[in-house]
């Protein structure tokens, strides 16, 4: 009874089905100007975008791989195909999506979710969006929800040009540069002034091809006084070669607007998730991040918020679960660049079966950001002696007139609590899952019910096989 719990590997079969790569267009592995040109030609980019890609490639070649985080030396871009597509085109009806792709999203429950609880859905399969649809009522409000490629050529072309990789420039870091060079797919959302969308929009990203990369770009623009809840889901089947995800999310939150951005990430455990997310918030605006990180072999993920306008706010609620063979480096960054701004970062991390979870945060309060408030709280739960949890909070406060708080706690799952739940007839495995779910409750209660249930299922999945 007193033996340590140990889990060999989890049953991820519900996410693990894969499709044959037949009929797919797959660009040669590696990264050269020629390959970037080919992608640009495939996508029929406007001239400025073609140049943007090539310039990004130059930046990529100049920058070093980061050495301050988890080891990514085994990731070799020469083995990664940066562009893979079935060339089926993007559809507005699930009926028209090719069967095997549709089947994939059926298994993941996406069409079902669209019917019951979403205002619009986008689905990306490998490098291209295969489906985008938004409810008619939502469209009538002037809300735009489409893929970036279409937006680049349509009515919103200038808006894209003005915002694309302005918040996250390719010079930001090596994988932002990579994104700039080979980005493909993703979503563009525009919410006009005063429009409050009560029902969420969701984009789901599925990477099916082995040894490939996914580089989707999400660009969201909220005008004054608008509201949007955007949900992002990701998954992939497991392969024994490295896959790479280097997406980029740019969020522009207008005056008094409010954006909630929720992510449930469940990449397979051969994935390098080197993702960059950033929001800029105007006066009185709010950005709320809800983030669940469960999958991937290695993650570098620190959504950043720039509180540009007076009285703007950010809230970040996150949970990270690192199991066997996972090294997840996650957290959040915020820059207070105006007076009366406030930020609230609250994260939970769980590590188990030798997994390593690192919380990393950065809070900067500029000199002019008087009367600002920042609070950082991180709690870690280690489920055994072989797992690891680190906390690296950084603070750079340049005004005396700010209220800053920080709290960190590291704990272990209590044997007494497990026995207590077991004494009511609950199995050891379920008792531990209940304690871990409770620990991550701050995130699940921020999610719509269906996603909270998915998250609890992911926790149960991670905890299953815990035999005492």
């Amino acid at each position, binding site marked *: 009874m007193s033996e340590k719990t140990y889990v060999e590997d989890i049953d991820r079969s519900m996410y693990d089905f894969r499709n044959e790569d037949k009929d797919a267009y797959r660009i040669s592995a590696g990264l050269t100007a020629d390959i970037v040109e080919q992608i640009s030609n495939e996508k029929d980019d406007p001239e400025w975008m073609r140049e943007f890609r090539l310039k990004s490639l130059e930046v990529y070649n100049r920058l070093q791989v980061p050495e301050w985080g988890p080891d990514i030396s085994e990731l070799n871009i020469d083995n990664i195909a940066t562009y893979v597509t079935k060339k089926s085109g993007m559809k507005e009806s699930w009926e028209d999506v090719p069967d095997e792709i549709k089947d994939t999203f059926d298994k993941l429950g996406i069409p079902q979710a669209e019917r019951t609880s979403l205002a619009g859905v986008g689905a990306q399969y490998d490098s291209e969006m295969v489906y985008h649809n938004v409810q008619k009522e939502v469209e009538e409000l002037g809300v735009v929800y489409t893929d970036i490629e279409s937006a680049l050529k349509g009515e919103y072309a200038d808006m894209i040009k003005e915002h694309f990789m302005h918040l996250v420039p390719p010079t930001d870091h090596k994988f932002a540069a990579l994104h700039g060079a080979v980005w493909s797919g993703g979503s563009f959302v525009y919410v006009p002034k005063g429009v409050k969308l009560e029902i969420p929009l969701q984009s789901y990203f599925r990477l099916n091809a082995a040894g490939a990369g996914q580089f989707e770009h999400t660009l969201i623009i909220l005008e004054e006084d608008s509201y949007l809840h955007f949900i992002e889901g990701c998954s992939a089947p497991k392969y024994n070669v490295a896959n790479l995800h280097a997406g980029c999310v740019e969020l522009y939150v207008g005056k008094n607007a409010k954006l909630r951005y929720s992510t449930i990430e469940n990449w397979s455990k051969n994935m390098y998730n080197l993702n960059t997310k950033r929001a800029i918030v105007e006066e009185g605006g709010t950005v709320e991040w809800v983030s669940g990180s469960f999958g991937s072999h290695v993650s570098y993920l620190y959504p950043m918020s720039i509180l540009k306008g007076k009285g703007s706010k950010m809230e970040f609620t996150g949970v990270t679960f690192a199991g066997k063979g996972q090294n997840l480096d996650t957290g959040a960054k915020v820059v207070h660049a105006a007076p009366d701004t406030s930020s609230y970062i609250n994260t939970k991390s769980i590590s188990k079966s030798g997994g390593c979870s690192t919380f990393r945060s950065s809070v900067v309060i500029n000199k002019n950001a008087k009367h600002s408030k920042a609070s950082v709280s991180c709690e870690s739960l280690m489920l055994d002696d072989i797992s690891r949890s680190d906390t690296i909070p950084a603070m750079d406060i340049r005004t005396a007139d700010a209220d800053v708080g920080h709290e960190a706690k590291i704990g272990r799952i209590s044997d007494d*609590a497990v026995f*207590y*739940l077991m*004494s*009511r007839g609950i199995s050891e495995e379920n008792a531990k899952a209940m304690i871990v779910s*409770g620990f991550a409750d*701050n995130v699940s209660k921020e999610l719509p019910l269906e996603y909270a249930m998915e998250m609890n299922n992911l926790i149960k999945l991670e905890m299953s096989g815990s035999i005492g």
Partner: protein
Amino acid sequence: MSNNVLEVKNLSAGIEEREILHDVNFTIKKGEVHVLMGPNGAGKSTIGNVIMGNPRYQVTGGNIIFNGEDVTEYSADKRAKAGIFLSFQEPLEVPGLPLDGFIKNALEQKTGERVRIWDFKKELKKAMDVLSMNESYGKRNLNVGFSGGEKKKAEILQLLMLKPDLAILDETDSGLDVDAVRIVSKGIEEYMRETNGSLLIITHSTRILDNLNVDYTHVCVNGHIIETGDGSLVEKINEGGYESFLEERK
């Protein structure tokens, strides 16, 4: 079939190398109320925990037979499913786990059947009424921020909902004020009336026993049951204290 619910036979147990219980024997029949008394550190709580299957303790000898089945090697959840319940002296706090959801989950795992939400709500309300608990407690996280009295009421609430064959109450009355003891006692009486279950009450005081018909009293000292008697033994010890009781036995 015999009426024996619990048979503790030559039970020895301890933590790591240290033996705490030595050759403990007693039998509880259906519907009986047993009281386990003894000075601090005598091993009373250990008896409760070992019967429930706390992995912190190792059984070094003897057997625990429950409803005719040897459960000595069973894990705690299996014992709970068989019908053993322990009201904890210090119930644990579990953040993020609401009390009502927890009880519903426990009921479902115990019976292996889905519990219908309306039936459950009705049952829960009824049990909460017995314990003068406000319904809002159901939504609160298990024992988090509960006062001592609230925690003990939540334990008895679980007892009323799970309806075990045997309830072990470990110092359920300790640290409670007179009103709280009265309410908790009412809950225990309700359990006896509804289920005709059996009770093993580990206690220092007699307040909780006022309205119960005690069948047997066991006195535990230094890990031994040194004396077993009827209900009157409780009064005898309370009048003279353990010192004189032990003195008298010499």
